[in-house]
């Protein structure tokens, strides 16, 4: 992966506490209520949002790194800020909504190049990867994305 070669840049997450920075096996970080066991992503920090649960004890847990494509779309035009385009000339990209079987929830993410919306099909297997969101002169800003599992879908 190319970001190991440019050692001069600091590699940082696009947001703190949402995912691990393991380049080979990144994980989304959610929280789980210690009382009712329900999951949250983005990680809920203060209070359990289950209206039947009063708990304030939420622990950080790694979420499934594979799931099923619930649906997808793409951006043919550049989204407004705070979106930051990684390239000077905007390049369309796909977005994926992936259902996690264990946590029973759907989590969005961009789809990394070279995959486009034309490579996607509802119901196929997707896996979590770490990929640059954009770069500055000093930093490479990383985010989680969903990539099709090779040979692992209904394609």
């Amino acid at each position: 992966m190319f970001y190991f070669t440019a050692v001069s840049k600091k590699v940082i997450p696009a947001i703190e506490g949402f995912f691990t920075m393991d380049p080979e096996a990144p994980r989304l970080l959610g929280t789980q209520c210690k009382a009712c066991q329900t999951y949250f992503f983005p990680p809920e920090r203060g209070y359990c949002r289950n209206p039947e649960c009063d708990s304030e004890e939420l622990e950080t847990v790694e979420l499934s790194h594979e799931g099923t494509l619930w649906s997808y779309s793409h951006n043919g035009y550049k989204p407004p800020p705070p979106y930051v385009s990684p390239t000077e000339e905007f390049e369309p990209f796909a977005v994926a909504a992936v259902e996690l079987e264990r946590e029973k929830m759907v989590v969005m993410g961009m789809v990394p190049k070279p995959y486009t919306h034309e490579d996607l099909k509802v119901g196929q297997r997707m896996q979590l990867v770490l990929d640059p969101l954009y770069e500055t002169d000093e930093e490479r800003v990383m985010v989680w994305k969903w990539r099709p599992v090779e040979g692992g879908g209904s394609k």
Partner: protein
Amino acid sequence: MSKEVAIAGVGMHPWGKWGRNFVEYGVKAARDALKDAGLEWKDVDFVVGGDTMRNGYPGYVAGSTFAEALGFKGTQIASVYGACATGAQAIDAARARILAGLAEVVLVVGADAAPKGFFAPQKGDRPEDRDWQRFRLVGMTNPNYFGLYARRRMALYGATSEDFAAVKVKNARHGLHNPYARYRKEVTAEEIAASPLVADPLRLLDICATSDGGAAVILTSIEFAEKRGLKVPRIAAINAATPTYPNPILDMPYIATDSWAVVQPDARGFKPSIAYGAYEEAGIGPEDLDLAEVYDLSTALELDWYEQIGLCGEGEAEAFLRSGATTFGGKIPVNPSGGLACFGEAVPAQAIAQVCELAWQIRGVAEGRQVEGAKVGLSINQGLFGHGSAIIVKG
């Protein structure tokens, strides 16, 4: 005690890109609504303004902004914001005050002057803000959410781009003679297919534009309307509600759903629950409707609404549309006004505009787009950050 209120008058400023101050649009709509009701500004004892987020501070205090423009006279005011559902929440606030006996004649008014292009979040670096998260971390625009639902329809029910285009063709025809619509021109399936792909599978002409516009209603107590001899439509129900936890459907602007690993989701689902709450309050069902104004932010979303408001079964919307059921002469014309397809969205005015259309239709004065024998209508929309609203109007 009746929970109904009377729609004594309605008024609108035409939708478009006029490039003027939003206050002007709202005041024009308010003055038209007063005239329509045969009432004067001095008769109004409560003003509810629908807020706009895109026009600086005057937009956040819309109630007093409009009251100032109409002439300060010590009127009670409220300012309400609920994204696309703003107008319905504003009407609900008006209804509550009338039913509590705290007001007799209420002006509800909303107007917007919208920028070109995608709706953008407020400026600033706010990683805790769901709206910041979806744009920064996933690049999710509003049309991306519509795209997800559309792709899902295609996968589950075999919907096609041609089905989506057929919604636009229908609505463009409906709006041809609506003097308040921004786009009054027939659109062909070929033109839609040739328009740029904005948010797969949706093309530019599948997605509603952002517009300038203003809409107003004058609500009164039933007693006041009767005293004045006003034979006017009534608001029979308003349901402006949140989903129940857990909501398993990805709603704007979230980047993940709730988890349904522990708690079972509501069997009905959030968007159907918006309509059914209103049906329950009005004591009617979808079979009693003569028309509906639904929030067609995209063509595919209109198909979702057919099912979510109970006009047809799940997966049947494409066939229902193709049968002609939702156009003039059909079982239940949907978006006789032309819908968002012909208006584009003027956020705080849109849900009020839906009610204006229901009132005109039920009064039988919707020239060039009249649904024959319209007596009962429903309007519905979804908000942002988990809420939506439905209003039922009866003759």
